[in-house]
């Protein structure tokens, strides 16, 4: 899955560590999501969408 988490995080000037703290996960998990190495669960994806004020489908798109 492709995602825009890194771009949206950068817009808010948050570090990976800051976003991780807001999400209640480790910085490595945020990095793995951003680099597409890990697709988050639905609850974590919803939390990301809420924090980044985007709809889930705006943040995550299926790989074509």
């Amino acid at each position, binding site marked *: 899955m492709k995602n825009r988490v890194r771009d949206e995080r950068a817009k808010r000037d948050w570090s990976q560590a800051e976003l991780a703290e807001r999400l*209640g996960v480790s910085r*490595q998990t945020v*990095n793995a999501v951003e680099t597409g190495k890990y697709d988050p669960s639905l609850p974590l994806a919803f939390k990301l969408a809420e924090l980044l004020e985007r709809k889930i489908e705006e943040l995550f798109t299926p790989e074509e």
Partner: protein
Amino acid sequence: MSELACCESTPGSREYKRRIRTAIAGYTVTLLLAITFLRAFPASPWRFPVMLVPVIPAIWGVVVVLRFVRAMDELQRRVHLEGVSFAFTLTVLVTLTWGLLERAGLPHLPSVWVATLMIALWGIGNYLAARRYR
């Protein structure tokens, strides 16, 4: 008990490391004291309870690990599951193979080495699994 290579930034991971080190140190010290006692008094009626004393810090180690796993996030749990699966399946494979070879004349493998093997493979498995998500 090995430290979990996957979870360096888990909330409370420093506390986890401190607690697991305390458990390992407690196990090592009580084991050395128990072995010293056994060598000095090999026929003592206390030899069984004395040899069980190191189990107390080992139980504490189990509690610490389980609490830490419950505090992990979803990716860390996945990494940990992969690490544990790696350790479990390889330990089964090695011990079964060794068991077969024992019948052919290989020396008997003391059971304490099975736990040591599993813990070592657990650390390697966690490291390998964590590497895939970096």
